[in-house]
Structures are given as structure tokens and as C-alpha cells.
């Protein structure tokens, strides 16, 4: 069973979205070259791993394992399968290291492999991300203020919240879910998402917009419940 780490979002007073600590950490440490282009923070380790240094590759695994396991979990919605997808992603990356040309960051390249691996897993499992013809109004997918347990420790509350978010994401078609998870959960920018999914930026924007529209009826009650708990 996966342990849950408490995680909160930060909203600016004017309502604009600020990166949550986790999202900020995802972009932290990205240095800028003298030409203003971001330098891949993994470049040194990637070069060493490509030359045969296994310890360097293990460092890369430890650096990116959390993001990949969580990303796979959001896509395939199964704990065991998420670990398999993440593991297979790293193995494929290791085998293809010499073909990695650095045209994108190593992180983006990993997400590309993970996305394709997750899609294959879903196809192999024979079911789509969208849960059949279930309506978005289905009460089982909404989380009203009354259904949120009160008086429970924070870890369990966040576990409930994460499960509710994942259940809502599961309703989306694959392409919408991948796009919105990469943007809002993983914090990739539109250019990176376009590379990962192999789609134009305009298509990525459209998918994210439509995904959020479909999630509003499922997730907004959750937000209300969280605020209700916070005010107690």
C-alpha cells in the first residue's frame, strides 16, 4: 500500500494559481545557460550513465521515481500496474540511453516513454480511461461536503482527496486525462506536453480545457469540502 504525503496548494489573494511546493520543486534547480536556454539538470548523470556508469543511472532513477510512479498511477489507476509502468519506463530508458540526443530534457523524454508505456498497459488491459458510459452526474464520482470524513488525521483526509481526484480523472478519455495530468498535476509546460504526446500545442490546450470542463462537476464539490474542513 502506498504511503501518502500531505500536500497542499497555494492560492494567491487575487485567485491566480501559484505552484504548490511539489510543483515548484519539479522546476527547481533548472539552471540557465549563458544564452538564456535552460540547462538540463540531469545532463551530467545522463552522460555518465550513457558511458556505462550504473550508479549514475540509479541516481536518475531515484531522482525521478516519485514523479513517474505518481504519473503512472494517475493514468492507469492501479497501484501495482503503476509500479510496473514506472519500472518498465526506466528499463526502456536505460536501453535507449544512447539514442537520447538531448533535444528535450531527460525528464520530458522519461514522460514520453512513460506515456506510451501507460497507453500500452491500458490497451493490454482492454479498458479505456473513461468508465464506460457512466454519466458525469453519477453521484458515486462526486464528493460532497457531507461525505468527507471529519475529525480524521490529515493523512487519511489527503488519501481520500487523492482517491477522489483519481476517480474523477478516470472518467476522462485517455488523451484528455494525459494532457491535464501532465499540466496540472505534473507541472509540465505546453511545449513539453506537446513533445510528450506528439500533438500540436493548440491540441494540447484544447484537451486541457475540455478535461477541466468535464472535471468541474466532479472536483468542485471536493474543493468545497476541503474548505469546509479547514474552517472547522
Amino acid at each position: 500500500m502506498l504511503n501518502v504525503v500531505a500536500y497542499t496548494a497555494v492560492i494567491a489573494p487575487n485567485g491566480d494559481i501559484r505552484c504548490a511546493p511539489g510543483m515548484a520543486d519539479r522546476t527547481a534547480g533548472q539552471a540557465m545557460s549563458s544564452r538564456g536556454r535552460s540547462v538540463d539538470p540531469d545532463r551530467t548523470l545522463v552522460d555518465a550513465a550513457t558511458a556505462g556508469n550504473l550508479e549514475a543511472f540509479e541516481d536518475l532513477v531515484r531522482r525521478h521515481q516519485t514523479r513517474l510512479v505518481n504519473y503512472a498511477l494517475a493514468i492507469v489507476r492501479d497501484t501495482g500496474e503503476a509500479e510496473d509502468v514506472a519500472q518498465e519506463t526506466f528499463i526502456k530508458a536505460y536501453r535507449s540511453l544512447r539514442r537520447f540526443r538531448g533535444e528535450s530534457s531527460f525528464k520530458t523524454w522519461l514522460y514520453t516513454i512513460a506515456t506510451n508505456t501507460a497507453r500500452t498497459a491500458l490497451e493490454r488491459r482492454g479498458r479505456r480511461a473513461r468508465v464506460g458510459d457512466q454519466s458525469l452526474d453519477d453521484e458515486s464520482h462526486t464528493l460532497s461536503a457531507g461525505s468527507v470524513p471529519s475529525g480524521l488525521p490529515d493523512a487519511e483526509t489527503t488519501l481520500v482527496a487523492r482517491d477522489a481526484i483519481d476517480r474523477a480523472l478516470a472518467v476522462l478519455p485517455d488523451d484528455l486525462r494525459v494532457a491535464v495530468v501532465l499540466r496540472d498535476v505534473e507541472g509540465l509546460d505546453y511545449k513539453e506536453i506537446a513533445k510528450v504526446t506528439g500533438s500540436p500545442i493548440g491540441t494540447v490546450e484544447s484537451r486541457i480545457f475540455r478535461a477541466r470542463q468535464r472535471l468541474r462537476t466532479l472536483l468542485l464539490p471536493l474543493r468545497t469540502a476541503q474548505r469546509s474542513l479547514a474552517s472547522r
Partner: protein
Amino acid sequence: MQCDEAGPLLLRRLEGRLEADEAPRLERHLEQCEACVQTLDAQRRVATILSSRPVAEVPLGFAGRVMANLEPVPGWAGWPGVLDALNWRVWTFRLAPVAAVLIVVASLGFRPTEAAEPMEFSDLVAEWVVEADARGLPAFSLLWQEDVSGDILLEAVLTADPDEPF
């Protein structure tokens, strides 16, 4: 501006990516369209909720299992595989047209040489006889003739009359 056109712009407004000409047009639309205002608010709130999704910890021993499942990379130790280093797929596609052109040029420029057909033995003898008769010379004297072919000379040597070799 219609709501259909405003939709994609709402996303960019949320993230501060509107073009200079798009911002004022969208603001004017939002001043008149409550539905789009609510859509913008919903987009912001859903993104906030998703970004607050709790991070699950990685199962214990995950990195170790990954490393244990890595197979040795084929090729010399520390050296890249020849095909990988050459990125054979890329070069195959890039050089295929060149190879096709070379094949066409080679096929157009190839012509079988007109090698001398081997002569029958009797024809050799006949030619030698004609040669000898035409010059009125004994057979062996052909040895000292510069313009006599090797075949004729060979026949002359092999068939010369021992009584009249020259």
C-alpha cells in the same frame, strides 16, 4: 467575440499567455458574458485542485528492483554499439535516395564488353593457313612476323611440318 472563440483564450488568460491583441478582446467579452466568467473561474479551481493532488510515496525498494531488471547493454563494454552509434535508422533513410541514384547510374553506364569470341580450332588452323598462303611464307616463318596473332603462332608451332618448319 463568441463564447466558442473565447474558450481557448480563457486558458491562456489563466496562465498569462494571451497575445497583445487577444487580451482586450477577451476582457470586453468577459464584461458581457457571465457564462464565460464562470467558466474561467471553474478552470482555475479545477487546476488548483489537481495541482493539490497528494503525492504518493514510492514503494520501498523500487529503485533496487529497477536496477536488478536492467540487462547489460549489448556491445563492447563502455563502447556504444556500432549500429547505435551510427544511428543506422537515420542514415538508412537519409542515404536510401543516394543509393537509388547510384544504382540507376551504374545500371545505365554498364555495358558488357565485346570480348573476342573464342575461335574454333579448325578456324584457327584455317586462318593460319590463309595467313600463311596469303603471304606465301612457310608456316614457321610466321614466328618472325610482328603482326601475327598469338593464336596463329600457336597453331603454327603445333602443326608445323617437321620436314619444312620454316
